[in-house]
């Protein structure tokens, strides 16, 4: 009998303590990895010094410029009111075909240095359908 009681305690410990410890641990990690998802205007206004900010907007097609020698791609990102320049190393699939672009990186000296660029493109097809 005492043995069973003891084992219930073990089970209870596993079921209560582990999740609690885990929640404490993940909330720490979590807060470090949450970053703002903002429009171009918000970046320009706010003091966005965090890493990994995500800035969404539209690429201004005729500003897309790729420098072969440096392997640097630049383009302007706009939300209609404000425009910010994005820098990225390498080229980006489907950029010329995009409806919305999300640049992920740091905002430094008026330029977004993107580590990653998400291009929402497939939606173009469905969006077109709705309009049409």
């Amino acid at each position: 009998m005492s043995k069973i009681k003891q084992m219930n305690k073990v089970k209870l410990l596993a079921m209560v303590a582990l999740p609690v410890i885990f929640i404490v641990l993940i909330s720490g990690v979590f807060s470090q990895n949450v970053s703002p998802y903002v429009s171009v205007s918000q970046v320009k206004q706010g003091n966005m010094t965090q890493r990994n900010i995500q800035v969404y907007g539209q690429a201004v097609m005729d500003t897309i410029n790729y420098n072969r020698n440096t392997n640097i791609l630049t383009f302007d990102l706009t939300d209609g009111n404000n425009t910010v320049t994005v820098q990225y190393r390498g080229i980006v699939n489907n950029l010329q075909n995009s409806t919305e672009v999300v640049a992920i990186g740091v905002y430094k000296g008026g330029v977004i240095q993107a580590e990653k660029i998400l291009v929402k493109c497939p939606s173009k097809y469905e969006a077109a359908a709705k309009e049409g």
Partner: protein
Amino acid sequence: MDIGYSALAVALIASAISFVSFVLYLRKQDESQYGFARIALVIQTVLLTAAISLLLYYFLIHDFNVEYVALYSERSLSLEYTISALWGGASGSLLLWAWLLSLFMTAIALRERKDRLTGYALGILLTINIFFLSLLVTINNPFTRLTFTPFDGNGLNPLLVNPGMLFHPPTLFIGYAGFTIPFAFALAGLLAESELWIFRVRKWMIFSWLFLGFGIFLGGWWSYTVLGWGGYWAWDPVENSSLVPWLLATALLHSVMLQESRRAMKLWNVLLSIGTFATVILATFLTRSGLISSVHSFGESGIGPIFTAYLGIILAVSLGILAFKFDQVKSMNVFQSATGREASFLFNNLLFVVMGLTVVWGTLFPMINEAVTHSKMSVGPGFYSAIAPWIILSLAALMGVCIILRWGATSTDDLVRKLRFPLIAGVATLPVMYFLGFTNPASLTGFVVAVFAVALHVEDYLVDAKNYAGKTKVGFFRSMGHLILVRRRRYGGYIVHFSMIIIFIGLLGTNFYETTHSVTLQKDTPTTVGEYTFTFNGMTVTQDTTQTEYGVNLLVSDGSFKDQLTAKLTNSSKTESMIVHVGVLSLPFQDVYVIPDAVDQSSATVTINYNPLISFVWYGFAITFVGVLVCLLPRKIGGAKLEQG
């Protein structure tokens, strides 16, 4: 009205009739109703098959009067991608979903015993089917016709024109549709007051688990070959949403074994079945709703609110049934010792569920946060990559240790005796890997655990084979084969465990030792980058009506071997959009992964990645298949005879 639409509408009616007949059967115990329900079920499957075939036919004959066909295909699209355009949008995906579900239902109706348990399960499955069919005949009709007929269609997004598009969505959907089965049977078990559901869902669950996992794997592989989607896994919300049901399903796959053999975890199994299905529904609509920003979200299709409501109904009804039949899920407490096999199942479940909840939280947080605070936040991959390694490492260790644990408790002597050799093997890995150049401490911990776990597998297998040979007087090597057949559930499972450890080794290699080099190669000038020498052999330009393709031809060599590698840039003439096709040279121990950045006749700017050990991920997956096949081998084949002999 299109004839395809009529087929869907009649299928919906047949589904409803079948549902009502099952209800009548269950209420009045009238066997003839069961037969009738089954006929209606088969009819609706036939109709859905006709509908999906018809849609496919419209694609093949380029009937652009059908809006869906015009949106997702065009004349110049090759045959295979024209077929895959079938699931290029929301309506077609839902149709595929509903069709797969109806195939599963028919298979269950024909194969499973005709009783109340199956009756309840089919009734529940039919409600899901009715939900999908209702969407298809209302807001997601794939057969909507345009008032005019465009000369050509919109075409498939260039990023979707990839072999991944052919296999990834349908494979994943088979997995998704399959996980309606444990859900339906779990609730059916409660309603019919039968524990047999556990036995009945096993083969369906293993089958669906394989497809779900394989679908995720294909997605990763696709992502790996399409630049810009961040390697094989980026913790993107849509990727996450397909991972969560897999994590919960894996937990379920294990915890049902405790109910089978120990009559424990009854409540937990029902909850996991509900959770797996709920997250399947979540995944289906997250991909399609545009609620969450992701590279994969294919635009808003207005089904978000409906799916949210449906999810709410599923949870409310199933938890309601559970509360109503709560006396059905009282379990015995079988956890006697931390060294018992029961405890290892408990840990397994904790790890998978915690991982699942972590991913759910990270994925849904932006949505919840926006609803509450009206500001948008996003959760970076750093969140997951801080947690996942610990879970994976613990699982790797657990997959090793679980082999030697016995039901109840394992004696210390036994533990010491069986752990001795694997521990030595694990520790011995340390200097070997270190001298091979794997010096990162975190990865070394991983390698030690992996070898320890593999050694436990090998040890157990060899000892088992030796005992079996001694008992049956069959030769040692034949015993090894016999054992797998005789104890196919045990060894099928262990082969899958083994394959996961192999995949784990691959993940260690790519996560800790991937190197990136950016370089401009001049034509015909060998340039050494890291371990290999690259020679740019020139650019090939191929042009057709739809696109211009620039091939970057490279010769990769080191002292002992030479191989060609081609990476490509294509420029679609329609959208003026540049698409990168990476070139991958898979060597036994690493991938040479080349991203073309820019190219002209005289030089090529490329980014070269070395991905060590990624091949282990591919090998591992092949082994998973073998393990699952062993698990699913019918008893008729070999086993029974060998057991007697």
